[in-house]
């Protein structure tokens, strides 16, 4: 090879490794940039309100200059946690069945079904919620508890959301259980364990870190989901006291109001703070799950 060609080759090699590094840096920087941007845009509101006041006040009257995020934070947390409580166990049992008991062709059928679930636009889930879940809750479920509700409430939102996050949680859980070597199952069985004992005492333990990451991804997805939840949650600015009360989650607040009424002083900055809160809460969930996993793996 000529010297020139050799130089050109090493040059190409260098260039290629550099531009990939640039993209990597960009990817790593993005969350920081978003976080910083949100903080910068929302910082104006801190000049007039204290953080505790913003977080814990229940008064949301932008025209009167009152910005209490408490109802929105509570709504968001309630809907998300309820949704994960509903779909978490369903996904876990489905994943165990698919990977431990089902014939291999069933998993082959399920994979595209899961992908379809993941691909349905969220507005369709919202419509489905309005025409099916909302009347079901208001006419069939709430009367059982002697409660009157329009059906546009926390519970409906959580049900719609729980269906939406199934594909994300289930996909990871299937991978988690598939990744456990079959020889480990065989080892437990050969010691005289029943299949259920093996699942309960060995596989679930081995899968625990994966289960935590699956659930925390579900939480992150659920927390940020906007349209479908907005369509069925009721969107009333009031602290919900039970799951049949209407709620007004943070993403819905931003989506409903951004672009309107921005002439109201600090309104723009308050909505940015809502976004920042969303960002931080998801971050905390993620951090928490990482710590749990790391702690667990140290003792495995």
């Amino acid at each position: 090879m000529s010297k020139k060609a050799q130089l050109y080759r090493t040059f190409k090699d260098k260039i290629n490794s550099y531009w990939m590094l640039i993209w990597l840096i960009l990817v790593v920087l993005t969350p920081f940039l978003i976080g910083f941007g949100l903080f910068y845009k929302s910082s104006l509101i801190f000049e007039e309100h204290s953080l505790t006041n913003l977080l814990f006040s229940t008064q949301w009257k932008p025209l009167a200059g009152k910005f209490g995020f408490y109802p929105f934070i509570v709504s968001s947390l309630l809907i998300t946690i309820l949704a994960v409580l509903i779909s978490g166990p369903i996904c876990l049992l489905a994943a165990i069945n698919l990977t431990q008991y089902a014939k291999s062709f069933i998993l082959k059928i399920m994979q595209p079904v899961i992908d379809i679930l993941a691909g349905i636009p969220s507005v369709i889930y919202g419509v489905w919620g309005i025409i099916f879940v909302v009347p079901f809750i208001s006419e069939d479920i709430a009367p059982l508890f002697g409660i009157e509700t329009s059906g546009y409430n926390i519970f409906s939102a959580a049900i719609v959301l729980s269906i939406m996050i199934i594909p994300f949680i289930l996909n990871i859980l299937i991978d988690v259980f598939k990744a456990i070597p079959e020889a480990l199952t065989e080892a437990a069985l050969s010691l005289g364990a029943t299949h259920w004992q093996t699942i309960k005492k060995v596989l679930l333990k081995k899968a625990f870190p994966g289960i935590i990451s699956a659930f925390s991804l579900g939480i992150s997805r659920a927390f940020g989901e906007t349209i479908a939840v907005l369509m069925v949650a009721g969107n009333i600015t009031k602290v919900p006291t039970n799951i049949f009360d209407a709620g007004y989650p943070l993403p819905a607040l931003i989506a409903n109001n951004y672009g309107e009424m921005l002439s109201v002083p600090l309104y723009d900055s308050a909505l940015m703070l809502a976004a920042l809160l969303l960002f931080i809460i998801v971050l905390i969930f993620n951090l928490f799950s990482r710590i749990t996993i790391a702690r667990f793996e140290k003792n495995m």
Partner: protein
Amino acid sequence: MENQNIINIENLNLSIGKQHILKNINTSIPKNKITVILGPSGCGKTTLLKSLNRLTDLNPDVKITGKITIDDINIFNTNIDVTEIRRKMGLLAQRPYPLPTSIFNNVTFGLRISGRTNKKFLLPRVERYLKLANLWEEVKDRLHEPASRLSIGQQQRLCLARGLAVDPEIILADEPTSALDPISSAAIEERFIELKENYTVIMVTHILRQAKRIADNVIFMYLGEIIEQGTAEQVFENPQQEITKQYLRGSFY
């Protein structure tokens, strides 16, 4: 008791989907001997071993016909408790797979799941079986550490202790030394030779020299069939089949 057969296999056929993995297997395994199942990779050795304690049940696509009797009990009998059959056999896999828990809990797993959870009952047994697997001295001060912190050779001996702790009659070993260094391998082989006094050992291997070192009986398999079987002397010194001769000469692996 001498020359008594503990396992009899009659017309065993096993297929997964359209793949015919085991073809007309007929053999018997003598008690208190080391029987080595020998043959090139992919010839069905491991599948044969796993069908003995019905680990083949794990794959719902597996179809089995034929009969395996262990202690004169047909293991495919549908009203039999499969955990009882498996408890008769300790399994040692190609690589050690310690359960995700402590050394102590690994050894006592089989006992604990059958309801023996008393520490006073378990503790002497942990010592006994770890000694039997030649691991006690190395781990006696850290029984409650995670098993994953042991070296791979130690883990394999832990798996042996774990298997012995359910008091089996038979030890099934599936290329138990393939992931180990020569010293750890030798330790396992020595164990087997000592253990055959009280146990029946069935070992799958494709290492000819290992088979020659420890086998009393040899079953030579090729492409899902038993080509030749007999005592180690018969098979190694005076093989009858052309394929066996070629394999022993090292013409293929």
